[in-house]
Structure formats: C-alpha cells, structure tokens
C-alpha cells in the first residue's frame, strides 16, 4: 500500500517535470489542436469576458437611462455600504455555514447512493430507482419548500413520526428556531438533489474497466473491499475535480430556499449574501450595489477555487488547473 502511494507520487512528479515549452515549432506541430480550441477561446472571451466592462457599474451610481459617460462616479461607496452593514458578517457566516453543510452532505450522500445503486444487479430495478430518485430535481423550490413547510408543521409528518417513535412529547415548531435552520436547508437540498448528483458518479463508474472487478473477485475481495479499492479509486478523479469546483461555489448558497423558508424568527440564521444583495440591490433598483456584491463574490470564489486546486496539487491528487 505504502509503496503504491510512493509510486503514484513519483509518477506524478515525473509527469509534472516534463515541460512543454511554447515554441513556433510546437505551434506548427500542434496546429490541429490549436484549430480545435483557439476559436472556442475567442468565443468564450466574447461572451463571458467582454461584458465585464459592466463591473464599472459598481463604482458608479448607475442609472439605466443615462449613457455611460453621464453616470456619476462614487468610488467604493457601495462596497462600503456592503461591508459596514451590521448584518454583513452575519450574512456571510450564514452563507458559508449553509454552503459547507450542503457541500459535505451533498458529496457524501451522492457518492454513497451511487455506490449502492452500483450494487443493484437487476437492470430494471436499477433504472427505476435512478429515474425516480432524481424526480425532485424537476420540482421548483417553490413547490419543494411548500412540501417542506407542510412536513415540518405542528401537525406535519416529521412531528408525527418523532412523537410516534417517542423521541419527543410535543410537536416542535421547526421553523421558529434558528439553530435548526441550517439543518433543514441541508436536508432539503439532499432530498432534492441527491438523485441528480449521482448521475455523474454513475457515469464515471461505468468507465471502470470490468477486468479490475474480475481480478478483485479472483483475489477473493468482498463487496466493501471492491468498493474501496476498485470503485472509489476509479472515480476518484471525478470526485476531486467536482470537489474543487464546488469549493469555488461556496458563496453560492443561493437564496430561493432561504428566502422561501425564512421568517422573522430565524432571520439571523437564514439570510444569505444573495438575499441581502437582492434586497438592497436589484429590489431597490440599485444595480450598482448588485454589481458590487457580484464582484465581491467572484473575488472570494476564485480565491477559494485556486486554494482548493493548490491543495489538491500538494497532495499529489488530480488537479483542475
């Protein structure tokens, strides 16, 4: 085991040591690859990067009816508003807290479910379960939060089951306690997305060479060992890549769930950055503040992304960049 790890790292390092310098000769040699990719690069620059001139809006008091030259410049006024608001830190904390919970729960449940689904031998049952499991993905949050709210009500199913099991004596008003809120959001996310999230992992699992499983059988490996030594390593690259990308999205806890399930009693725990920016930005016609919020999120996201990528590199794992 230990030897294999060392072999891995050494091989990886060897790969990394090979540098591919950019020379005219190289360009000529790889021109097909260049034709296949550089036009697409130009495309994405046009559609994603060119509009970024709009970030200047964050430094103005933007009024949509005035031309660019007529806007008033206010420097960092909107950023100051954002950062000095009493609620800002709280809102940041909520966003990160819910994101991390969603991230961890999301990964664990999706991979776990994918592994279990992989063990199903009967094709029709497997396909049925898989199809049904991602049905909630198609329901909008408006409907899902309606169901969640009904389930968590005093006469809802959650309280009924808990009382029947004898775990509580009186119904709990779940949505009135801030401390439960993050859990409720996490559970709702899992319910809605676990089936959908397994799709990628199942696709990755299907690319694992079956002869590896055969070899494991020959060596007498049991189910769990096969999972541990064949399946999971087989999809490890996928997992790591998705993990790195998700870390970059840590500020995207979203707003629909929190907005729909939140209320005055839990607002200190439910308000996220997106809700805050929406309330004081777009909802007030303050496009500048909305843009400032967006810039802030981007800066943090890219920092997190690069950080996660670097950690993966240090650990000798598959990297994104």
């Amino acid at each position: 085991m230990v030897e294999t790890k060392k072999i891995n790292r050494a091989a990886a390092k060897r790969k990394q040591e090979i540098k591919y310098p950019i020379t005219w000769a190289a360009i000529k040699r790889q021109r097909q690859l260049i034709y296949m990719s550089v036009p697409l690069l130009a495309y994405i620059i046009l559609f994603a990067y060119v509009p970024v001139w709009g970030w200047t809006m964050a430094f103005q008091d933007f009024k949509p009816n005035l031309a660019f030259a007529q806007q008033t410049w206010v420097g960092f006024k909107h950023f100051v508003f954002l950062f000095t608001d009493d609620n800002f830190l709280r809102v940041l904390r909520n966003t990160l807290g819910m994101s991390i919970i969603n991230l961890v729960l999301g990964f664990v449940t999706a991979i776990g479910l994918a592994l279990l689904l992989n063990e199903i031998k009967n094709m029709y049952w497997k396909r049925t379960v898989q199809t049904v499991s991602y049905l909630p993905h198609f329901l909008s949050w408006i409907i899902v939060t309606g169901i969640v709210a009904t389930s968590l009500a005093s006469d809802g199913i959650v309280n009924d089951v808990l009382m029947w099991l004898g775990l509580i004596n009186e119904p709990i008003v779940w949505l009135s306690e801030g401390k439960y809120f993050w859990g409720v959001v996490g559970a709702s996310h899992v319910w809605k997305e676990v089936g959908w999230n397994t799709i990628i992992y199942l696709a990755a699992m299907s690319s694992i060479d079956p002869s590896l499983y055969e070899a494991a059988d020959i060596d007498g490996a049991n189910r769990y060992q096969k999972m541990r030594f064949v399946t999971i390593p087989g999809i490890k690259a996928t997992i790591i890549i998705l993990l790195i990308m998700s870390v970059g999205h840590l500020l995207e806890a979203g707003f629909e769930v929190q907005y729909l399930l939140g209320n005055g009693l839990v607002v200190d725990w439910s308000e996220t950055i997106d809700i805050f920016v929406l309330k004081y930005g777009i909802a007030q016609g303050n496009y500048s503040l909305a843009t400032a919020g967006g810039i802030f999120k981007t800066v943090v996201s890219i920092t997190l992304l690069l950080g996660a990528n670097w950690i993966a590199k240090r650990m000798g794992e598959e990297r994104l960049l």
Partner: protein
Amino acid sequence: MSAKKTSLSAVSASATVQNKSGINRIEPILFNTFNTLFMVILVVVTLYPFLNTIVVSFNAGNDTIRGGLYLWPREWTLQNYRAVFVSGTIYDAFWVSVARTVLATLLNLFLTTMLAYTLSRREYIFRKQITLVFVLTMYFNAGLIPGYFLMKDLHLLNSFWVYVIPSMISAFNMIVIRTYIGTIPESLVESARIDGAGEFKIFWSIIFPLCKPVLATIALFVAVGSWNSWFDAFLYTSSRQELSTLQYELMKLLSSSMNANSNPAVANGGGVTQDTVSSMVTPISIRAAVTIVASVPILVVYPFMQKYFVVGLNVGSVKE
C-alpha cells in the same frame, strides 16, 4: 495506464482471502435486502412529492386551498390544465423549446467534447492557459445590463439564436468530459498517431465514440438546462410572442403574486374589485399543473438515454 496497473496490484496485495465460505453465502442476501429496503424508502420519499404534485394538479383549486391532499384527488378536475393551455400560446412555445433544446444539445456535445479533448492532451502547449480562462467563467457574471448590451450589439435580441449561440460551451461540462477522457488509455491515442492519424481524426473517430456514458450525461444536463431556461426569453425575446419558450409561458402563469410587492398600490388594495381578486394569486393547483407540464417531456425522454451508461463499457480493444 500505469495508474490502472497499480490499482490492480493494490487490490491483490491487500485483499484478505475470504476464510469461511459461509459468510460469502449470507452476506449478499443481507446486503441486498438492506439495499432493496433502502431503495424502496428512497423511491417513496422522492416519488411522493411528485405524485402529490400530480394529484394537486388534478384537484379543484378551491378545494386544494384547504390542504390535506395526499395521494388521491378529492375533487377531480381538468380545470387547472385548461387554464394552462387556454390561451393557446403553449403549443408554439413547446416547439420552440424543442428546437432550441435539440440544437443546443447537439452543438454543445460536439464543441465541448472537442475542446475537452484538446485540453486533455498533456502535451498541448496552451493547455493550462485555456483551461484557466474557461474555468474562471464559472465564477463570475458580468451582470444583466452589460450582457444585454452585448446581445443587442450582436443583433441577437428578439432572435431565436439568442437561445443557442451564447451558451454553446459550458466550462463545467467541459471539465467533466475532460476528466472522463483522462480515463481512456493513452495507448489508444498513441497507436492511432503511429498510424498517422491527425488530432481531429483521433478525436472524431476514437475518442468521441468512447465517451458515450459521459456524453449521455452531459446531453442530459444540457438538454434539461436548455429546456428549463426562461430567463433568456424574459430578458431578450419577450416582445416577440412567437419566440416564447414553454418554460417562459409557464413562468408567466406562476408569477401572479410575486410582483405585487413592487407596486405599493396593489399591496394597499388599490383598484382591487371582487372580480379582479382572483387574478391576484396563482392557486397552488395551477402551479402544480404548470410543474407537470414543464417536466413531463424531459422525464419521458431521459429513460431512453439511460441505457447508454448504465451498462458497463468496454474501454478499449487494447489489452494491457
């Protein structure tokens, strides 16, 4: 390639030999029972909200308000679906959605995979730079208004092509495909090169067909994304009814009460009469009907795509 070899030896080196054959006989039964039970619970828990939505969509709005509907409609009606289909705009919008979904899926699959292939070649000199440029796009958004101006300048406003052209490549999908291509043995590519094949030919004839599982996945993602999108119709084509998409039409039905808050007159009862009251809120039952109409087409199509990656694949004809 060498990674696969090492994991094979890892398996052999560390697998303990099963001692009693008795355990081997009971364990699958136990496990499968547990697994099946678990899956049944999963199915119930995930199917129920959907069934409930179907039930609500067939229940009279007046009655649905009371709540307490579970698995059977209390007051059966087709009225909700009538409300969805009544102005007739749904039918044309449906075809527009189909057209954009099919086009977007085909274009995306081809372009994204081609790009993913080039970025999977470790020797590609621009690999790092291009990957970075693409990956960063997932983390920023230039904003509504600049985006709008771009579409305007490109003459994509009020045109069908605004649904397809700006979203032909997604960085996320590209990364997923690139990762998958990474699991295809280099030896296949090398032997093709030795045979004199150019990069594009390698991509088209060898890699692309081998990517079926991930292509099916990405096709699903793109199709669902394209099918569900309404925001672009909202911003860019809303003044041309004939370009409306299915989701946008349905969205119009859903948002009756969402915008009242931007109009204080409404929130203070200005101009509300007994007749107009009913148009102030979208009943739950109509929301349910809208959901069903929106998701049924995709749900019907997807199971047919599933067979492409549920079955294991023979990665290559080259034996190690």
